[in-house]
């Protein structure tokens, strides 16, 4: 009955802050309605795209004029949350654009596919702004459950079903960790809101344990060592558009909240976080070196990138003298990553929808001669993933390492830099395969007719270059 005492009506700020989520919700409902009423089916794509574009538009409004804490402090429509949300919605659009010709056997269920992606996007938006462990959990489950289904979406294939099951089992385990951690935190402090937890003293073993469990479950979601073991199999087995979405959107949402709850880590955990970051980079980069399967290679590279972002969290924990430094760096990094990894995975999806052979690295041999545009875009994405100047990936990496250096994490920065040399080793192997090795006999060559794929590839290319060459434009508007 206590809750009834502070009944407040929805006010304009609540609605404004929740508007992007409401837009996505409308998209979900429309997508389902289209499955019920066949006459609506042609408008399916329009509903999907419309709701996400509306969400992005609303997020841009929110970045300019944040609505602040809404729903009695359960959700924070801050500028950074809105920017993370914007990135998640963009990632959904990118994944969707590459999925249009991807499914053959499952094509009749494309409507469900889109609805599930929208559900997961809604979950991400909630995660990005959650100011309360429970709100976050709602978002987390809204993200995870659709992704379990999406991972197993090609249900006629063993690897896809296996990916779904594996992701589900480990995801459920991580959710359990989170809930248990939240319960312990509640037991020791009597609150679940982040503001309350920040004010409470968290030195009791119970609270430390709770914090560690919550952080661990987040580490699982964003694939940090030693919770990364599911990544290669799940990324490889899932349909590639879903992998695209998982690698970019989930990571953005997970890190958005990880930055919010970094204070749960006890003092002195910065070194541990830094060490985990370097270990994650090492595991990802070294394992990626020996992969011959393109998706698996990108999966390990995604692990390595989680490590770089975690270095930003470590910088936050270690106390970067520029207070907004780590979060801004992570946002920029993530922004570049959405377009680079989105484009890279997306191009794999695009090629794969023409011919399954493209899953192997060797199938890319000589592609530079046969499909120069596609190969050039993929090469650019590789360079950006490797953090080469002129691309957004470089500045993201620069900002993260700058933040880490400011926070006195010199050792981890140097190790991280050396590991990114290793990373260039395999990114350049892809570039090498594209341009310097002769094509195999009977290599597939099909002209991609998928307009949406081409458009989004162009979008990603332009954004990667713009983020690398004109960072001022973005920094002024979004930071």
């Amino acid at each position, binding site marked *: 009955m206590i809750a*009834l005492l502070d*009944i407040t*009506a*929805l006010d304009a700020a609540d609605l404004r802050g929740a508007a992007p989520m409401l837009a996505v919700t409308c998209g979900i*409902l429309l997508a*389902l*309605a289209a*499955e*019920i009423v066949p006459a609506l089916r042609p408008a399916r794509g329009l509903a999907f795209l419309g709701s996400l574009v509306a969400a992005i538009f609303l997020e841009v409004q929110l970045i300019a004029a944040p609505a602040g804490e809404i729903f009695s402090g359960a959700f924070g429509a801050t500028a950074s949350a809105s920017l993370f949300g914007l990135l998640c919605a963009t990632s959904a659009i990118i994944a969707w654009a590459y999925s249009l010709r991807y499914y053959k056997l499952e094509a009749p269920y494309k409507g469900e596919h889109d609805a599930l992606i929208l559900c997961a996007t809604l979950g991400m938006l909630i995660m990005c702004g959650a100011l309360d462990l429970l709100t976050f959990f709602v978002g987390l489950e809204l993200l995870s459950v659709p992704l379990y289904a999406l991972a197993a979406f090609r249900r006629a294939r063993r690897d896809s079903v296996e990916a779904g099951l594996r992701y589900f089992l480990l995801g459920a385990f991580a959710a359990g960790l989170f809930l248990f951690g939240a319960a312990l935190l509640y037991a020791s402090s009597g609150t679940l809101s982040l503001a309350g937890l920040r004010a409470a003293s968290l030195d009791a*073993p*119970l609270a430390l344990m709770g914090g560690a469990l919550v952080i661990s479950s987040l580490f699982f979601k964003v694939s940090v060592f030693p919770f990364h073991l599911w990544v290669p199999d799940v990324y490889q087995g899932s349909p590639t558009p879903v992998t695209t979405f998982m690698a970019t959107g989930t990571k953005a949402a997970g890190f958005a909240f990880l930055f919010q709850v970094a204070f749960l880590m006890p003092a002195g955990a910065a070194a541990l976080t830094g060490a985990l970051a370097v270990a994650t980079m090492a595991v990802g980069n070294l394992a990626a070196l020996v992969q011959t399967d393109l998706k698996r290679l990108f999966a390990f590279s995604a692990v390595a990138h989680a490590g770089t972002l975690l270095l930003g969290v470590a910088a936050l924990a270690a106390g970067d003298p520029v207070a907004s430094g780590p979060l801004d760096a992570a946002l920029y990094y993530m922004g570049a990553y959405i377009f680079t990894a989105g484009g890279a995975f997306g191009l794999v999806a695009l090629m794969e929808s023409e011919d399954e052979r493209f899953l192997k690295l060797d199938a890319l041999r000589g592609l530079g001669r046969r499909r120069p545009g596609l190969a050039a875009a993929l090469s650019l994405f590789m360079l950006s993933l490797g953090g080469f100047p002129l691309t957004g990936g470089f500045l993201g990496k620069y900002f993260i390492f700058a933040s880490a250096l400011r926070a006195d994490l010199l050792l981890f920065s140097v190790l991280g830099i050396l590991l990114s040399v290793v990373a260039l080793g395999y990114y350049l192997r892809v570039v090498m395969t594209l341009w310097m090795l002769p094509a195999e006999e009977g290599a597939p060559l099909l002209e991609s007719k998928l307009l949406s794929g081409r458009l989004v590839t162009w979008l990603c290319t332009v954004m990667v270059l713009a983020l690398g060459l004109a960072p001022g434009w973005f920094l002024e508007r979004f930071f």
Partner: protein
Amino acid sequence: MPTPYTALFILLGIVVGFVVLVTVASNLLGRKRQNAEKDSPYECGMDSESPARVRISIHFYLVAVLFILFDVEALFLILWAGSAEAFNAAGHGALVFAEVSAFVAVLALALAYVWRKGGLEWDR
């Protein structure tokens, strides 16, 4: 450094230690005589007739999931019904009613979807 948890941790240690001890000791000390009879499944003296793992139709799960979904719906509705008067008193009655209606409408849409897709038909 005694904290309120020290006893707990000591107990934890004892429990784990005991389990390990008993398992290891029985493995080391016990005599092992294995034969076919001993390895066969025990079913109250009867001979077992069929494999233990039976495949259950997926429909059971589907129905179970749907049941939980609409069960939870009922839970929310009861909460609303119980506190509707208080909302009315606070002057938010209409708003909250609209919210609950939206909730029900979403669930109705979901039900329509399940129906349309044949999720409610038993033998298909």
